[in-house]
């Protein structure tokens, strides 16, 4: 059953080939047998899952159940789950149990999806390798000496290892797409505002966006149907009706104009990755799509702008973790200052502290204009690049990240090398555009991701093209040997 896609599981559930309880138990068993190999899941909610599965079976029996009813999934531990620890991968929240659900969690619960547990992640979603988690690194199922990518590395690895057919994730600078690429699965970061941020622990509020991860584009479409909603509790959520993302999956790609930005095929790109991506593009061309060379001239500014804006917002977003109200408080503080300093120094890991310091510095009196002000101007330029490009093309494609999964510790001493992992993904967050990664080849026996960037709210077209690509390729069906 664990090799089924979500679409196949839905058929199986609706045709009574198996019950949700059986399915849920199967995945729970897999998690308990295999998770130690990958450390992808950090909280298992077995009892709750089986209760939810039994309820889902009743709804399924009534014959009028939503698509996701009875399908087991995992939630990234960044989403608040009522009564279930939500740590955000941090010692700071190791003891935090929220009294509310994130809207994303609520939406899946509403449709009867079954939560198996919570996935590991880089601490506060800050990282591209899942090495910054308080709960230890996640291992890539394709090569356990290598990283799964981050920050949604737990979700990606869990899907690659068939511990769940789908999982929720978040993407601030590439945290859905890069781990999806490195773990050989599909992942979509929707348009900013498409999915509610309520109950999703903030890293950089103007960039954070939740999205689905699954093995196929079709599964992502099914999950996005459930996830996406306008939410009055999130002022940046966009009041726009949610289309049925599965409805247009079958459309032909004939005549589709695909922009290929030259900046995404430059220095630093692994030749094997480039080859795989070019071959994938050739496949689409063979199906009748038109490849158009384009330029996104401000691309090289996206990483520096991002590493001003994201830390600046994070420095304020993480101020609430002060040891006063919830979360970690140091032992025996001698006064208020001591409580603040030690609670935060002991509760946050190194990378989180580094970004808080960078952000605080960028916003300081005398530096604001040179850093934060400038970065916002760059953000505008990047938006303009994209809006110019979308005048002549329907989608933009290129590599998701520069190279396949690297070994643990390979970039640990060099934060800038780590930051460059997201060189192709960050610009879409700065522009608020949707981006996706689908498996498109193998290099050194590790997966390569093809990135698909769409115009605002054009997720249906991206999913359609990704689905069509998966009809003529089978990279998304390949499994790591150990699985």
């Amino acid at each position: 059953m664990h090799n089924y896609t979500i679409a196949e599981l839905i058929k199986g559930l609706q045709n009574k080939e198996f019950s949700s309880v059986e399915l849920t138990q199967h995945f729970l068993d897999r998690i308990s047998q295999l998770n130690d190999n990958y450390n992808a899941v950090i909280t298992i909610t077995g009892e709750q899952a089986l209760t939810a599965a039994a309820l889902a079976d009743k709804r399924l029996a009534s014959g009028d159940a939503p698509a996701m009813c009875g399908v087991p999934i995992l939630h990234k531990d960044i989403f608040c789950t009522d009564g279930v620890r939500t740590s955000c991968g941090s010692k700071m929240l190791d003891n935090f149990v929220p009294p509310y659900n994130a809207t994303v969690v609520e939406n899946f619960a509403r449709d009867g999806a079954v939560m198996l547990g919570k996935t590991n992640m880089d601490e506060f979603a800050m990282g591209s390798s899942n090495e910054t988690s308080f709960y230890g690194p996640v291992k890539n199922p394709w090569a356990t000496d290598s990283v799964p990518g981050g920050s949604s590395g737990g979700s990606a690895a869990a899907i690659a290892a068939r511990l769940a057919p789908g999982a929720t994730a978040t993407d601030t600078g590439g945290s859905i797409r890069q781990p999806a690429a490195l773990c050989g699965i599909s992942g979509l970061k929707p348009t900013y505002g498409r999915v509610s941020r309520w109950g999703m622990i903030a890293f950089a509020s103007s960039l954070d966006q939740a999205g689905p991860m699954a093995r196929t584009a079709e599964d992502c479409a099914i999950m996005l149907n459930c996830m996406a909603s306008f939410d009055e509790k999130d002022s940046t959520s966009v009041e726009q009706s949610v289309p049925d993302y599965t409805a247009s999956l079958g459309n032909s790609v004939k005549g589709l104009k695909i922009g290929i930005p030259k900046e995404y095929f430059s220095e630093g790109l692994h030749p094997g990755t480039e080859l795989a991506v070019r071959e994938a593009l050739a496949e689409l061309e063979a199906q009748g799509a038109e490849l158009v060379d384009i330029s996104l001239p401000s691309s090289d500014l996206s990483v520096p702008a991002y590493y001003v804006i994201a830390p600046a917002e994070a420095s304020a977003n993480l101020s609430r973790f002060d040891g006063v109200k919830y979360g970690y408080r140091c032992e025996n503080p001698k006064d208020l200052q001591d409580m603040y300093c030690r609670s935060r120094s002991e509760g946050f890991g190194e990378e989180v502290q580094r970004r808080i310091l960078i952000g605080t510095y960028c916003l300081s009196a005398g530096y604001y204009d040179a850093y934060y002000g400038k970065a916002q101007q760059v953000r505008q330029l990047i938006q303009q690049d994209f809006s110019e490009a979308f005048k002549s093309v329907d989608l933009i494609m290129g590599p998701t990240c520069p190279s396949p999964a690297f070994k643990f510790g390979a970039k640990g001493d060099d934060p800038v090398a780590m930051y460059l992992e997201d060189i192709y993904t960050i610009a879409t967050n700065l522009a608020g555009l949707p981006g996706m990664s689908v498996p498109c080849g193998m290099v050194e026996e590790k997966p390569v991701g093809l990135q698909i960037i769409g115009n605002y709210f054009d997720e249906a077209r991206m999913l359609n093209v990704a689905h069509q690509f998966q009809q003529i390729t089978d990279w998304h069906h390949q499994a790591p040997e150990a699985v």
Partner: protein
Amino acid sequence: MNWETVIGLEVHVQLATKTKIFSAASTTFGATPNTQACAIDLAMPGTLPVLNKQAVNYAIMFGLAIDAEICQESVFERKNYFYPDLPKGYQTTQLEKPIVGRGSVTIQLADGTEKAIRIHHAHLEEDAGKSTHEGDLPYGMSGVDLNRAGTPLIEIVSEPDMRSAEEAIAFAKKLHSIVTSIKICDGEMSQGSMRFDVNVSVRPAGSSTLGIRTETKNLNSYKFMEEAIEREVERQIDLIEDGGTVAQETRLYNGDTKVAKSMRSKEEANDYRYFPCPDLLPVLVSDETIEELRQALPELPDARQNRFVSQYALSDYDSAIIASDSNMSAFFETVAKDSNNPKLAANWVMGELSGSLNNAGLGFTESPVSAKQLAGMVVRIADNSISGKMAKQVFEAMWQGEGTADEIIESKGLKQVSDSGALEKIVVDVLAANAVMVEDFINSDESKRKKKLGGFMGQIMKASKGQANPQQVNQILLQKLNELL
């Protein structure tokens, strides 16, 4: 040397919304600590703010009331600093693009002159919670109450246009009058609904450059404000005259102990690292909204004062006092209309009633004597049923809840005797019983006679048990005495 005082005010006004500025928690004052703080107010992870539209409308109404520009696109920013009663570690406020731009407030001074005080801007923001260092907390810990956290505020920032404590108080009172008149604030200063930060500097008279200022924060009464300003002015002048310089600093004034002290110097000031809040969209205000709010804006104190003069023929002085307080105005208007005697109504509302309420620490909306009751009594004064002196007894009884004026007049037998036959008999009897006084009156010269009339009046009122109509008695008495001359 002569010194000139320069004062600017920053006034925090709590808006009278039912719920907080970014959450649905109640803003009611005085609840058990932390019972009115929801997940958003507690800054639980993943929670997000949603702007309260009523707070925005109230801010716009204030802007309209002071004839200010309304910014059609204002922006919330984060003001970053750590404090236990600031749950998010930043205050959501406005800086670069506040909702209310430049405006002006006219104050009236004791000598009757008027002065315009310019408003630099007013912005929307959230209040912080409260830290408490008292009570039964173990190990010398401090407590945090987040009930107030997230209460909507407008902060009104004046230009340094005031030149004395008197002007500052007049300005503060005028703001109080405006915000309570348009009903965007309950005006309860003792509950912290209005709080004042006072910027004070001094300079040689005639100088046009500003001296170094200090800011005294969080004053919540006019009296404390006056004391704080006067002490600070004196301190600064002494300091400069002794050859020192004023340090730019934030100060605190304790109204109970009358002690002012430095809280932090300019060097210790926080770098607040303001930046636009990414969780909130810019606040867009349409022309239609502004026009709707302008149409619905309740009467402002200045307009009301003018109306009281024309509609009720009150003096400038009386109408200014009454019109400055919207609750007092409403009370007065009911009494005036129901009694059809605005002058008497004004006297009683401003005099006996205000005094009693003040002593009891009550507001006009909490008055034990209703406006209808007071009107009933005014009618009885006007138709001579009771004297002014009796009215005080009636008022006292109404205050104690003994009924309407008519009921009390009846039960206490307070009815004034205005029957001329009965009064004439009393006067004749008193004159007959006081032959010596009458003889003395006749033998006195004209100028002394007037004084001696009082003696007869006293006797007559005593004989009538205070119920004789004094004007009538006076007439009859003069007539009878004249007959004897």
